[in-house]
């Protein structure tokens, strides 16, 4: 077994979940990979941007999160 970033990324891509969540997770994961060696990455703004970019295509009804 050789676990590496590709396998984790593949795992996210192949996960059985909402496509918007999947896309969001991949973007967030790539951000973390790019900042591996940064002690305190300024993540909050970037995270919110990624969330904003994906929330529009979120199938809220199918996820059942909002009534």
């Amino acid at each position, binding site marked *: 077994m050789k676990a590496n970033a590709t396998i984790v990324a593949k795992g996210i891509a192949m996960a059985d979940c909402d496509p918007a969540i999947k896309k969001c997770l991949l973007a967030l994961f790539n951000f973390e990979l790019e900042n591996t060696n940064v002690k305190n990455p300024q993540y909050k703004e970037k995270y919110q941007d990624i969330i904003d970019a994906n*929330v529009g295509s979120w199938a809220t009804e199918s996820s059942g999160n909002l009534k």
Partner: protein
Amino acid sequence: MKISRIKLENFRQHKNIDIELDSSRSSFTILKGRNGAGKTNMLKAITWVMTGKLAKDEPKFDLVSLVSNSASREASKGEIIEVVVRVDIDLGTSGMAQVERSARFVKTGDGIQDLDVSATNLSVMTLEDKSRGYQKEPNPEIWLEKVFPDRFSHYFLFDGEHLERFFKDTEATFVKKAVLEIANIDQLEKLVEHLGNVNQQLVKEVGSIAGVKGEELRKDYEFIEKKIEGIVEELKAKEVSRLELDEQLSQAREKMGDIAAIQKDIAYRNKLEGIAQSASDRGREARKELNSWAFKIGPALMLSGQIKAVEKEIKTARTKKVLPPPYKPEALQELLDQATCICGRGLEANSDSCKHVEGLLAKFAGLSEIGTLLSELQQPLQYVKARVDSTPDTLQSTQERIKSALSDESKAMEELSVIKQKLAGHDDAQISFIAKKHDAAKKSLDSLLLQIGSLERQLEDQREKLALVRKDIENEAATKAKSREALQRQKFAEATLKTAQGMYENFSNQVRVKVAEELSQEFQSMIWKKNFFKPVQIDEDYRVLVYNKFDVEMRGELSKGETACLAFAFSLTLSNVAGFSYPMVVDSPLARFDSEVKEFVSSVLAKALESEVESEGKQILMLMTDSEYNDDVADALAHMKPKVWEIVFDQENAESRLVALK
């Protein structure tokens, strides 16, 4: 990743060492040498250049201690001495790199230790494109941490004599970090943490735009959040203390283990002292007896010739009847008084018979007195003669007793000297101090665990409260059009967070199970009691557990050989999980084994590593003493075709050099 060259300058006894290792294919190198030749310092040099430490257990050290005594002795005041360790690394398709760590010193006096550190430096040169040549890495520390993370360096650069600490429970969190890091799942862990924080931020944002009630709820949320932060901080601090106490307890336990061995040695020492004392007493007694006997028998021995002659004379006189045979004159007188001889003849007064007997009595009266005296003398003479005659036997047996006592005493003293040397520095006060420390650490840990338990309960309560307030915020926000969009965003973040948390759990469990499976396979391939152990497990806290077939956990009870196999297996497993091979440098891999286990381990280890060597291009460097690399071990490892070097210490110049053997 392979080391293609190791260059040491002025590093302890390695004043100038330059060794090229085969990196073109799998390589197995043995550096053998006597104790003190510099094997361990070779491992420390490699560890220093790669991590900045000398060993995991030695993060802090005096840099001056690195300087070669020989170099320091030769340097004059004001001169600069530079300690340099460089390793050239072959990164396969990623190119080559040269990692160099150095420390500069100024000689301040005449003494060897009169040195001041003037500078330390780490430089990394990488060669990715041959046409561009080596390029200097702008952030060598970061580059090194990325290529060879310090966190698990000790699983590849290790001392075979300290394997019992390899899997201790306090290391479990580091094992977890190492495994997750090399599997890159730690990035997912960071994602979960960051997304959790962002989600909380979004919840508050939703509250703040959901009207007056929403704002009040936001304040409540923030208040509870701060409370939680406080508890988490407190828990973190307690966790640090718990790890420290665990470490203290673990060290105290190890020492307690040592104490049991020391107490055994002390009991044996006392027994030996008893044996030596008893032998000494026996010897003294025998010598005393010999002296007393010699004192008594001495004059007799000196006069033994005359005594024998006197006794002989007495015997001769009796034979010739010059002396009367022993008789009783009173019996003769009784015959005269009764006037009857024992033969029935009459002994009437004035008869011839009576006169004859009376004549005899008169004639032998004088002689009888002498005879009686001589007879009385004969008894002690015979006794003395017997003693004189027995002299050789008595002398021999007493001398044998003395000899035996001396031999017993000497043997006991010899063993005593060994055991006393072993016990040097241990005293009752020290043992009692360690026992007290152990008890104190245990007591503190118990109390700390109670506090942690209480904090965890508080944390759970506050989190429940937080969830309730969040629900209230959601409900409040859902009723207002302006906050619905923000709520949608927060709900999306929350759903993403939950998915990420699930994935993290899933991946880390998968990796843990895979690591355990691989570790188990490697371990089973090395041990002979294959049916006795169940597959090795790694629990959720990343503690390595080894159960026997009776479901008894016995990692702590494994033999030295089995512990070594588990350590080697773990190192190989981590290497596999990492996806590329790290060089494995092991000092004294077989030091704590008896000869049979040595042969066995070297044989199975060779077999296990052989597959690694062929599939992954593994590089192994073993630092062995002459007694470790004996003929049996050499035979067992021969099919791996190791390149063997000898580290020879030149006593005159106080420096080591390398000699290629084969």
